[in-house]
């Protein structure tokens, strides 16, 4: 943290220096939560944008983890010191949307700056998620990811499974996991990060079943969760049963399970496509497959929903600042910038042109699997069940779900009880959040 504090200090000093040297330049502040290789991408994009024109200067500032960045933005807004651009993770989307007085829709920012905004140039699944029910785009999708399946080819070989065909359905995953465990190829068959995001939100979208009423919360605030429907209960009961003898191993609420997979403990793993970097780095003999679907679902596989983060613009800024933000967003939409972002960070490209260009360059042939999340998200036109999920208090509702899952996996309750509790407690929390 000290290092980041230092970096922020340097950034602040540079800001001061540059204000004194160039009077005409309008500063655009961008608070973000990117670390490691992704932070380098932020810095490079900012530097290139600043070099590309002389009217605006983009100043990126690292603000900590996703929740910390969101909180910093909220606290700054309350103190009247909001940044121009704030990076907010998918889970915080509902929080931002509920704050209409605080933000300015990106579509408005672009059009009022005299730019044409053609929505058809962007990947529909992603843009849809960050839009209001009437289609107005509220935030700019910066980094999007989607859950996919990874598997350890060495373990598959040892277990006598086909190395070239990853399991496509959840039933195939359970069978393969059992085989891995019983054959002794690994001590655990299957593990997963983000149970809430992968096994509830994306499970619902991918199988085209409802996660909650009101188009999963996208159409309105008065939302009731639907996650105790039989298809969810069966899925989670299967997980709970597999957890009993360690065929399924729980890693934690967020991405902790990655360690278990990287350590070679489990043969199969579901994780964000953004997690690919670490797996490549580990030197594992890995394979990638689509997110498995449920054979009981008629519409499966439908499409997955975007995770990751988007850029929000705060309200009550000067026209000059909004023009700068618009200039940055149109720069960010450029094909070569998107191509760089996609290939370097592992996140999805936001524009169709960047996707096509990457395809043409032969990148996907060299990096098999990198296209999987895009195909998953764009394969079919999204339905009411698969545009994403949105709640004013999604972080809290996910917490509730995680607590119930943990009790279930510890054998204290059945899947039916866990999901019933998650629905009752979740609905109460949503209702209360709406009263605020």
């Amino acid at each position, binding site marked *: 943290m000290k290092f980041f504090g230092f970096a922020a200090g340097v950034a602040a000093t540079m800001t001061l220096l540059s204000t004194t040297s160039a009077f005409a330049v309008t500063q655009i502040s961008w608070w973000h939560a990117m670390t490691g290789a992704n932070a380098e991408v932020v810095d490079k994009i900012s530097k290139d944008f600043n070099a590309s024109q002389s009217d605006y200067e983009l100043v990126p500032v690292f603000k900590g983890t996703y*929740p910390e960045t969101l*909180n910093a933005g*909220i606290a700054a*807004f*309350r103190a009247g010191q909001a940044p121009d651009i704030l990076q907010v993770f998918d889970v915080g989307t509902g*929080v931002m949307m*509920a*704050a209409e*007085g*605080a933000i300015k829709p990106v579509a408005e920012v672009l059009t009022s700056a005299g730019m044409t905004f053609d929505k058809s140039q962007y990947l529909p699944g992603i843009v849809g998620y960050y839009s209001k029910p009437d289609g107005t785009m509220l935030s700019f999708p910066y980094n999007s990811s989607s859950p996919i399946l990874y598997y350890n080819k060495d373990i598959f070989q040892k277990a006598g499974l086909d190395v070239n065909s990853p399991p496509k359905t959840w039933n195939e995953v359970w069978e393969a996991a059992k085989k891995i465990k019983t054959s002794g190829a690994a001590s655990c068959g299957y593990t997963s990060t983000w149970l809430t995001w992968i096994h509830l939100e994306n499970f619902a979208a991918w199988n085209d079943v409802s996660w909650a009423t009101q188009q999963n919360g996208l159409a309105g605030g008065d939302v009731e969760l639907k996650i105790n429907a039989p298809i969810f209960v069966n899925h989670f009961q299967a997980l709970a049963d597999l957890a009993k003898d360690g065929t399924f191993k*729980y*890693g*934690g*609420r967020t991405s*902790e399970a990655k*360690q*278990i997979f990287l*350590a070679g*403990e489990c043969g199969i793993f579901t994780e964000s496509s953004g997690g690919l970097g670490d797996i490549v780095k580990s030197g594992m003999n890995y394979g990638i497959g689509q997110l498995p679907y449920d054979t009981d679902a008629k519409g499966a596989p439908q499409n997955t929903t975007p995770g990751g983060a988007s850029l929000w613009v705060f309200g009550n800024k000067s026209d000059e600042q909004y023009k700068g933000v618009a200039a940055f967003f149109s720069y960010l939409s450029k094909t070569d910038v998107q191509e760089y972002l996609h290939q370097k960070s592992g996140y999805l490209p936001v524009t169709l042109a960047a996707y096509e260009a990457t395809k043409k360059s032969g990148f996907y042939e060299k990096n098999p699997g990198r296209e999987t999340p895009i195909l998953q998200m764009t394969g079919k036109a999204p339905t009411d069940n698969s545009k994403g999920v949105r709640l004013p*208090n999604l*972080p*809290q509702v996910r*917490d509730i779900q*995680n*607590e*119930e899952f*943990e*009790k279930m*996996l*510890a054998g*204290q309750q059945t899947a039916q009880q866990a999901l019933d509790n998650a629905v009752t407690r979740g609905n109460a929390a949503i209702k*209360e*959040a709406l*009263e*605020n």
Partner: protein
Amino acid sequence: MAPQLAITLVFFYWPAGQALYQSMLRQDPFGLRTRFVWFANFRKVLADPAYLNSIQVTVVFSLATAIVAMVVALLLAVMAEKAVRGKGLYRTLLIWPYAVAPAIAGMLWLFLFNPSIGSLAYLLRSLGIAWDPLLNGTHAMILLVSAAAWKQISYNFLFFVAGLQAVPKTLIEAAAMDGAGETKRFWTIVFPLLAPTTFFLLVVNTVYALFDTFGIVHAVTGGGPGKATETLVYKVYNDGFVNLILGDSAAQSVILMAIVIALTAIQFRYVERKVHYG
């Protein structure tokens, strides 16, 4: 106005007043819509089963941490007193962990007991214990108490060493002459004379476990599994900064403030007068 007073006003009364005001508001995260609700947040918090659970967790955690930290420290201090050679080195090594930040201490223990890569977890498993702090609430609590107590042992050790040195050697020697064994001497002479130190440490350790262990909880369990390790302080953070329910969070911190004031009053009334600093 005295500068101390100004500092207290700015850094205590002002934020405390704001917390008090916030605890009577219902507000969206951005502060765009605000309603004054008097004590509704307090009523809600006190009727919330999760809050009552968190009180229970906190009591268990604080007492366990205080007792473990004190018993181990006392044992080490008695041993240190007996050491003939290398006393200084032994003491220095024991005091070191106090310099470690709580979050770092938490990470350390988290690594040692990580079910996949932890060396101590491996040991436990080879002993036939199904060690799983990710899903087993008791295991998670044991892990937290170990980390929190380990960090506090050094502090307690210092005070116990000082306390032991204050015990008159003549008393112990006299008892030895009368034929009292080592254990007997400890329980009838040393331990009662250490009582003020012990009581002081009990208060300090409880306050530490109550309010100073946020970093450890945050790093090790994040309040889970379920809500098995969600202490009062952690809940204030979680409700306020993760769930963004500011009114509830403020009401909880006002309750915590009342607890701190009560504990401080007890300390001033009973402890400050009696403790010997050796």
